[in-house]
Structure formats: structure tokens, C-alpha cells
């Protein structure tokens, strides 16, 4: 009964189906229910608005209740952290809040301090930065609470940059800080900003994002580390089961569909959890469905992956059999593909989007491109769909792409 109520709570959190509340959207699966989205766009076509951003960010925008939220980092050493709120319809910047980083800002040049994607749950915005600063604001920019995780756990962090995004779990936000210092996963109460539970994690460099897996009528928090997967009770953190038969990736994150968890890594493993203290059944593994920075997406009978060079691979989600692979246009790819309006959208760092048909045979429907006019500008985050529009963020601009004005 208790677990059922947790599941209902979780479903209630995602009641705003048109929203895009967190990393890879509702459920963290990279699938949006949005329809009537534009198929074609360029710098002057179907761009409802385009707004400048104050600084870089690998974080994707999130959308809730007609507002889009974006994070960024600025300053010679990225010590200034930004949370911005825009009106979905007009692009008006409704508010901006800045914070001073309390943790270290050293990182690999590919990433930056605004790497984790924020959360907007309909009531509040939770923005985690690679500095281990976690901000909670209401939708008008009023500070609800602030956590300096470095202040709490001084050695947390690493010198290559943290990137795991927080996710919504029932009653809390889950933050996965797997690193060379104090390494942990912590559930933080959405209202109080205090720990609900905290469990130790391996001292490893890891950037992937946890997944809230729906196991029948129960929800389970699944954490991935190169040593394997562990599932935890979202209310207590208690370990429920462990999978050690594959080596999960440190960058690409899990996804799930119909009671199956898909974990990218040395192989893409489809695992089916059963019960507590029982190692999940491995349905299939495949080396022919490679991921890079981006995470796999499952829609219907298909699973899609994309590597850093833009090779998109389509496979059978039930068997792991590869159907096809095709290079998307563009040079390098960091953001995860998005399924929306029954199509697959793959965004390259240069702003080119290749649109694939979701089918057993490969077919590119169209290729769209926006260009900010700066060769150094990059679209590092995945595309987002909400409110009849796509949202794309580069280091310098936030785009709203829609046929509706």
C-alpha cells in the first residue's frame, strides 16, 4: 500500500504532460507527448523567439507552467551561477537570479559549471551546479532554500567537472554526487531542503544521471556506476537489488519502458528487475547500439542511440537486434536525442537537427539548422519539447521554435 501511494505520488508529479520538467523530460526518458511540433525551421523560419543567455551551459532548458528555466555560468573562473526564467510565449526574461559558487570550478574545457539540467516540478525550480551548489526557487524567483553541498561535505567534487542532473523522486529531488571526494547519493526534501536520506557511493568519476524506474506499481531509484546498477527505495534509500553483469557508462544515462531498464555502457543492457535482493534478468545485451555523451531513447518497439560522431543507431527494444544506423548531419554530438510527435530529433553541437522517422527502415525526414553566427558557439544540451514548441539552447542563445506565434 505504501509503495502504491509512492507510485501515485510520482505520477502526480508528472501530471503536467506538456511540461518538460527535468533532464530528458517526464520520467527522464527523452520522450515527449507533444504533437503538432514544427518539422522545419531555420534562423528565420518558425523561430518564435531567440533570447541571449549570459553564459555557457550544458544544461538543457526545462519547462513548467508556461515558463522556461535555464542555467548558466559566467566569470573568468565560472564562479557566477545563473538561473533564468523566460515566458514561453513571448520570450520575455521574467527574472534572473545569480549566486556565488561555493565549490571549486575547475573542469575539463568541454564542460562547465552549468552542466546539470535543472528541475521545474510545477511548484519550484531546483538548480544544481557542478560546484555542488543546489538552489531552490519558487516560480517567481523567490529563494526557498539553498544548499552548499561543498559546505556540508567539504571534499565533494572533482577537477574535471560534475555533470549528473538531479531528478524528481517522490517528495524529494535526488542528487547523485559520485566523485573522488565524499561520494554519495542524497534525496533532499523538496520543501525543507534537508536530507531525506543519503547513502555512500563509490569514489569514482561519474557523470550519468539516475533514473526513477517504474517496476510494476513501485517506483525505484536506479543508480549507475561503472561497477553496476543498484536500485533503491525512493523514500529510504534502502538498496533493493543490484545488477553487476554489465559495466554502465559514466556519461550516457539509463532509460526505461514497459518494465525494462536500458543501461548503456560496455554493452547496452536491457534488464528486467523482478524483486528485492534478486539480480535482474538480463533480456539482452548489444555492442551494436553504442552511446557517447548522449543517452538512449525507447519508443514503441524501437531503441535509438547516438554516439559522439552522430551515428544514430536504431534497434529492436525487445531483442536488441540492430535495424539500421545512419550519420546525422553535424560534426559532434553531446545532447541526447528527443522523441516527439512520433519523430526522432538529433541535435548536433553546431545547431543542425536531423529529423528521423521512427521506423524499421532508416529515413531522414528533414534537416534543420540554426546558426548563432559565432563559430565557437555550441549546442551542448539536448532538445526540449513543451507547449507546442522546441527549445534549443546554445552557449549564447535560447531558441523557441514553433509554428504557433
Amino acid at each position, binding site marked *: 500500500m505504501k509503495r502504491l501511494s509512492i507510485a501515485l505520488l510520482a505520477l502526480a508529479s508528472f501530471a503536467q504532460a506538456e511540461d518538460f520538467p527535468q533532464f530528458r523530460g517526464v520520467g527522464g526518458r527523452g520522450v515527449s507527448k507533444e504533437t503538432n511540433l514544427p518539422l522545419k525551421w531555420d534562423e528565420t523560419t518558425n523561430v518564435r523567439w531567440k533570447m541571449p543567455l549570459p553564459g555557457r551551459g550544458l544544461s538543457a532548458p526545462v519547462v513548467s507552467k508556461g515558463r522556461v528555466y535555464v542555467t548558466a555560468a559566467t566569470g*573568468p573562473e565560472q564562479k557566477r551561477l545563473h538561473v533564468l526564467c523566460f515566458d514561453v510565449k513571448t520570450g520575455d526574461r521574467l*527574472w*534572473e*537570479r*545569480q*549566486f*556565488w559558487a*561555493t565549490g*571549486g570550478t*575547475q*573542469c*575539463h574545457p568541454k564542460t562547465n559549471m552549468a552542466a546539470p539540467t535543472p528541475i521545474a516540478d510545477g511548484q519550484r525550480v531546483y538548480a544544481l551546479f557542478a560546484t555542488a*551548489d543546489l*538552489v531552490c*526557487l519558487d516560480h517567481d*524567483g*523567490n*529563494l*526557498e*532554500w*539553498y*544548499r*552548499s553541498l561543498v*559546505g*556540508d561535505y567539504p*571534499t565533494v567534487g*572533482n*577537477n*574535471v567537472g560534475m555533470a549528473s542532473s538531479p531528478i524528481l523522486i517522490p517528495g524529494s529531488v535526488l542528487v547523485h554526487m559520485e566523485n*573522488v*571526494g565524499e561520494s554519495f547519493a542524497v534525496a*533532499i*526534501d523538496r520543501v*525543507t*531542503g*534537508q*536530507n531525506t536520506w543519503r547513502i555512500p557511493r563509490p569514489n569514482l*568519476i561519474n557523470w550519468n544521471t539516475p533514473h526513477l524506474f517504474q517496476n510494476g506499481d513501485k517506483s525505484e531509484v536506479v543508480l549507475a556506476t561503472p561497477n553496476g546498477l543498484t536500485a533503491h527505495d525512493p523514500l529510504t534509500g534502502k538498496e533493493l537489488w543490484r545488477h553487476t553483469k554489465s559495466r554502465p557508462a559514466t556519461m550516457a544515462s539509463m532509460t526505461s519502458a514497459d518494465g525494462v531498464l536500458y543501461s548503456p555502457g560496455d554493452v547496452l543492457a536491457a534488464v528486467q528487475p523482478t524483486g528485492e535482493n534478486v539480480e535482474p534478468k538480463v533480456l539482452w545485451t548489444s555492442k551494436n547500439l553504442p552511446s557517447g555523451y548522449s543517452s538512449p531513447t525507447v519508443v514503441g518497439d524501437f531503441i535509438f542511440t547516438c554516439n559522439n560522431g552522430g551515428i544514430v543507431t536504431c534497434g529492436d527494444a525487445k531483442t536488441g537486434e540492430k535495424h539500421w544506423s545512419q550519420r546525422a548531419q553535424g560534426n559532434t554530438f553531446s545532447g541526447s536525442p528527443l522523441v516527439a510527435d512520433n519523430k526522432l530529433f538529433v541535435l548536433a553541437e553546431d545547431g543542425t537537427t536531423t529529423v528521423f522517422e521512427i521506423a524499421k527502415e532508416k529515413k531522414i525526414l528533414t534537416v534543420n539548422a540554426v546558426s548563432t553566427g559565432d563559430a565557437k558557439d555550441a549546442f551542448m544540451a539536448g532538445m526540449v519539447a513543451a507547449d507546442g514548441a522546441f527549445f534549443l539552447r546554445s552557449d549564447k542563445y535560447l531558441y523557441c521554435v514553433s509554428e504557433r506565434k
Partner: protein
Amino acid sequence: MVTRGSLCLLLLSIAPLSAEEVPSLLLRLKAVGKEGSGNAEARKAWKELAGKGPEVLPQVLAGLGDADPTAANWIRSAVESIADKAARQGKPLKAASFETFVKDRSQSGAARRLAYEYLVKLDKTAPTRLLPTMLDDPGQELRRDAVEVILKDAANAKDAKAAYLKALEHARDKDQVTQVADSLKKLGVDVNLTEQFGFVTRWAVTGPFNNVKGVGFKTPYPPEAGVDLAAKYVGKDGVTCIWEETAPTDKLGLVDFNKVVDQLKGAVYYAYSVIESPKDQPVEIRAGSNNAVRIWLNGKEIYFREEYHHGMRMDQHTGKGVLKEGRNEILIKVLQNEQTDSWAQQWSFQLRICDHLGGRVPFANITPKLSERKKGS
């Protein structure tokens, strides 16, 4: 010159109704503790504070002075919220009160910088008027902007060399200092970056001690109990360790154990140096290393970090301490792990002594007296 006292009088005259409440609200924000303790009380205080008018902004800004990093962010967001609300309600912010605050160097650098950003929005002439007076500013960001003004025009200045030398005198950030040094080199002036940054270059080193499977980080080998340059230690695999002198010639003070010693893996080396200080002075001991490090000043550990091969950056490891007048001892433990990847072979460090802005402090780097070892050996 505006004093803290005159500022308070000014503030009291501006906000007689709310002046008594703001300090207590700030105290409630500053009471936020670890792991979110005090969040509920802080949220109430924040809402009350953010509901006030823009006349309290200087007071709120002043509250940043003794706030810890978490409380500072609570206060900062209250400043932003008050200012935003005032703008929505058509209540003009007063440039004069921000300028008074910016000019008050007794306030924290971060608070003054925040005030400066509001001032610039209200008065576009502020940068031109104020930045030239901020070259010696105690706040890092304001000082950086002031140096940037010189750098922007230095190349085309009538006396470019003088302009760059002026920038060099006041620059504290590595990128600005190196930019100036590069420009001066083209003008025939060699800048001694070792001295400019305050790198320590005279070391005695000993090792190797064992770090197989990372055991060395938490193992206190004999030098940690006190340095005796005449001592011999039993090191890794039974080797005899003695202190030996090394003096890097690298302009940024890099001591490369792979060259000084050997390309060892799973090993620990210690480096020791003696610093003469003309006075008691608070300092920062800043190191750069791609390896795990521990740092001691006068026998007290001031920094540690167990991380390997995730990028080396000058000043990435910073400990704080006080140089006492006369002789001081610095000991750094630099650990190499056993990774075999080609990108995981660096085993080196650089270390400098500076003030909280990264500026030079007076000290002399004395060669450790290895004659003591010779006498004892």
C-alpha cells in the same frame, strides 16, 4: 573618504522605519547551518527581507561582510529580489547610495561588486569615473575590471610600456598577469613571473615512500612528524631515503618528480622548504598538481586533496595560514598513483605564497640547509 560610521548614519537617515529590523533578519539568514538546518527560519526571514523597499539595500549589502558562503547567497538573492520588485513597482533605485557603498572599502569585495553592478545599470558613467580609482581595490572583481581598462588601451597608449607596467603592478589574476608579461616581452621587458607570483623554488625532497593502492595518502611517513634533513628513512621496497636539494628553473616553479627523481608509480615524495618572513602575515599557500597532495605550514596541515590526473591548474589547491616573523617551514606531500594511461603520468607540483587576492607578499625563500644532512650522514 566614507567611513563605516558615516555610511551607517546615511543608511539610518534613508530608512528610519526598517533599520532596526534588517539586522535581525540578516542574523536569521546567517544562522543557516549545515545540511539545510535552519532553512525554514531562513525562508521566513528571507521573505520578510525581500518584502522591504529598496531603501534597505545598502544595509542588506553590508550584511554580506561576515556571511559564510551559504548565507551570502541567501542575502544576495534578497538583494536581487528587492531590486527587481522596486523596478516592477516603479520605485527608482538610488545610484548615490550604491556609489557610496561601492566606495566604502571597509565593506566586503563581493558586496561592493554587487552594488557596483546595480550602479552601472543606473549610471553608465560609473565605470569611466570609478574604475581608474580601483586598481588597488581589495575586491578581486573590481580590481580585475580596473586592470582590464588599462589593458584595453595599453597597446595604443602613448607609452605602452608604462601602461603595461602599471597593469602588472596591480594585476592579480593569472590570465591578466601573463597577458601583461607577454605584451611587455614584445616591448623588450622581461617579467620575472617566478617572483611576480611568489613561487617557492628552493626545495629539499625525499622519497620514495609507498603509495601502492593509494595507501600513502593516509600513511604518515616520518617527515610528517618533523623534518630532519640529516635523517635517513626506510622507504618503499626498503630503499633508503635521504633529503636532496632541488631548485626548479621553470618560471612557474614546477618541480617535476619524473625528472628530478624517476618515473615511479605508486610512490610518495615529500618536498620541504624554508621561508623567512619579515613579519607575521596571513597568507595563502597555493599549489598546482595533477596528483594527490597534502600541505603543511609550520607543522600544521592546511590543505589536502586525494585526486589524481584530473587536470593541473595553477592555484587549484589553496590552504590558508599565517607566516610568522622569521623562519617558517613548508612541507608538501605529492603522491603518484599506479595508472598506466598515457595521460596519467604527470607527477609534479608548483607552490606559491601570496595574499588572498593572489598578490605578492614579502618573503625570502631559503635553501634548506642540506649541510645538516651531510653533518649527520
